């Protein structure tokens, strides 16, 4: 009863710590923005808490009326992922809108720039005015 769970405990704690380390390294290198890392850090902390506090999962499961405690993990993990995926879709949609607006501005600037260049090349005859 005691020996096998302890092995799993060690494995899960090391796994969680390695995961957290990876997240930190990504932030330090500037490859992950802090706001998206929060959820991962929270997840890792939860993982570590339940790896150490083994009775916790069972207690919460009985409290919620779940007969098979591991299914609570699946439920929690799946819901968390679902919420996070929706959040990512929202972020992507916002980015797409911003890219579209920037593309428009860039196209306008390109046009202005080309007109200015053309004006400079033919300085003698001022062509149609460039709109500010």
């Amino acid at each position: 009863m005691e020996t096998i769970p302890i092995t799993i405990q060690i494995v899960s704690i090391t796994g969680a710590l390695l995961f957290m380390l990876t997240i930190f390294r990504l932030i330090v290198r500037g490859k992950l923005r802090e706001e998206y890392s929060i959820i991962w850090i929270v997840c890792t902390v939860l993982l570590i808490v339940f790896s150490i506090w083994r009775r916790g999962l069972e207690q919460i499961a009985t409290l919620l009326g779940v007969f098979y405690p591991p299914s609570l993990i699946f439920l929690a993990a799946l819901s968390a992922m679902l919420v996070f995926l929706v959040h990512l879709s929202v972020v992507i949609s916002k980015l797409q809108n911003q890219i579209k607006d920037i593309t428009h501005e860039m196209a306008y600037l390109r046009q202005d720039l080309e007109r200015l260049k053309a004006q400079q090349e033919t300085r003698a005859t001022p062509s149609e005015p460039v709109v500010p």
Partner: protein
Amino acid sequence: MSPTPAPRILIVIPCYNEEASIVSVVNDVAQARHQSGLVLDTLVVNDCSTDGTLVQLQTLPGCNYLNLPVNLGIGGAMQAGYRYAYRHGYDMAVQMDGDGQHPADELPKLLAPLLADKADVVIGSRFLERTGFQSTAVRRIGINYFRRLNRWLIGQTVHDSTSGFRAFNRRTLAIVDRYYPDEYPEPEAIVQFGLHQLRIQEVPVQMRERQGGVSSINTGRAFYYMLKVTLGILFVYIRLRGRRTLTPLAG
């Protein structure tokens, strides 16, 4: 009531890989300008074409064009043109496809209701008088479906809701400057305009079969098209209806 200076009209021509037809479309507009006496300016929006479209535009003397650095699709490209028209103080803007489907000599007919201030949005329709190119049978089924959906949601009947040959006045441009659907925008925009209480009018026009290039909608994408547009229509309806009840538009 009518403004003393002649209204300035921008013809926006979105194009993606239309090297075969774009020059003749631009020239047709120039010819229509001479014939009608309207102040028609042209703006070609090159949506990151991968063929020689840009070279054609650069070598065409006096051609006014925008060159999008990223491919945005028809909705994004059109919004670039409408925003341009709005910012540069144009009174009206017309969408005219770069593939030569929309004949430039129909422009005066399309613009007449705007010039008379009888409509805010004018849509050139193939189906009011059944002349000219009538599209394929399968597409007409889809077009009928959108007509019913639009009628049900905004109570206005638009026979040719996928027609890209349309003209907007400045009031419409102000709305489009803020939001215009991205992908396959035509049917969705009609619901948007209807909910903004704009006056939509259809005028019969003749269309031709595309002169070059390939359609953006093939049979494989048709299902996605119907689904995307239906969703777009329903959500734009829900969004704008909610807004309208919160802040009722004056007039």
